[in-house]
């Protein structure tokens, strides 16, 4: 197998790798913020807010990421906002991932028995204090491992940027395969993705065993 494309397209590869890593990290931060807000809306007890949160989660989760990325790509310029592919990809990935993260956070918080909130409130804590000091520390261990899984999905999903020529690892394969044989390019990129995702996946397994007592294999 001919791996000489690594020499010719070295710069493109590093650019692609860097784009995959940076778009994933940025989208992680944004989707954590957005996902937390949506989760809070859903458990707020205010009907209109909870309804909006539910509608958001259901709609985003039941439509393809590709459609969402194309939508951001075409809809924003239509209203006069011009963004780079990188920014479009970050926005699309953040919206998509936030709906999954919202559910992870909601499930974590709701798994803490209701009595704990009531006890904390009746011992004089405010809602925010009770949430911060009593509920969240207990929910944390339930939330973090599935969040890790969402981050792995995010890294994998960043490949979808290739459909808008987003310049990440998958797009690098498009560039490199114009001249080189395709098989070595794909095998190489597969190994690179595994180097990014497998350590994360091992960490998630470790935390699941440690915190949630899940069986390993």
């Amino acid at each position, binding site marked *: 197998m001919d791996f000489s494309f690594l020499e010719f397209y070295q710069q493109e590869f590093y650019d692609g790798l860097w784009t995959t890593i940076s778009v994933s990290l940025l989208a992680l931060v944004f989707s954590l913020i957005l996902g937390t807000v949506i989760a809070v809306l859903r458990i707020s007890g205010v009907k209109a807010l909870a309804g909006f949160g539910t509608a958001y989660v259901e709609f985003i989760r039941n439509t393809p990421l590709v459609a969402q990325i194309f*939508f951001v790509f075409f809809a924003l310029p239509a209203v006069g906002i011009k963004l780079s592919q990188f920014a479009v990809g970050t926005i699309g990935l953040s919206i998509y991932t936030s709906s999954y993260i919202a559910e992870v956070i909601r499930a974590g918080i709701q798994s803490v028995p209701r009595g704990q909130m009531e006890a904390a409130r009746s011992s004089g804590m405010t809602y925010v204090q009770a949430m911060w000091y009593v509920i969240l520390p207990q929910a944390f261990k339930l939330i973090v491992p599935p969040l890790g899984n969402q981050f792995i999905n995010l890294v994998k999903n960043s490949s*979808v940027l290739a459909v808008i020529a987003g310049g990440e690892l998958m797009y690098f*394969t498009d560039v490199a395969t114009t001249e080189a044989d395709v098989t070595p390019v794909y095998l190489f990129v597969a190994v690179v993705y595994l180097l990014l995702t497998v350590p994360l996946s091992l960490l998630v397994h470790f935390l699941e065993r440690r915190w949630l007592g899940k069986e390993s294999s």
Partner: protein
Amino acid sequence: MDFSFLTRADIMKTLLDGLLVTLEVALFSILFSFICGIVLGTLRYTKIPVLSHLAALYIETVRNLPLLLIIFFGFFAFKEWGWELPITISVIISMTIFTSALVGEIVRGGLNSVDKGQIEAARASGLTYVQTLWHIVLPQALRRMIPPMVSQFVSLLKDTSLAVAISLPELMHNAQIVYSRYYNMTVPLLIFVSLVYFVINYSLSQASRQLEKKLAG
């Protein structure tokens, strides 16, 4: 916002043709990944040396790769090896390779959730290992697998849109064909297509919830 395509028979026909390809690819991929996933998950669960390790290796490798990479691989690399497959078949193969790993994990999770005492009791009352698996473990495990399995298949249906990157004539691709000709319709078409995905996937999710309730009650 030009929604006039809703009354254009030719455009609606193009979209419908796309939807049929989407459904066809999704249906066959679901069927095959269900079968392969049960085999993989059961193999990994049984702890038969070599075989269970191979299943584990397969599952951990494939599920840590982006589906888009597998779709590219199944299309371009197979072609390079001289396997000329129709594009629909190549996408079905790629989707099956990917989803069967995830279904395998769901199956293993379901099998693991069955109380070990039941297996011991079944074995002690004279059932063979295979009989125990088939009559005692699988029926109980299957019930618990339904919700995660359905959400996996919803993902699969959404993810068929990734094949837009290799121009499979599915729903997303056909929408692109239309809006490349009628630029004004781009955003409305993306909204419409998203709604189509949403209606199908949301109905599937709701049906699975109903089924879950029925089986639990």
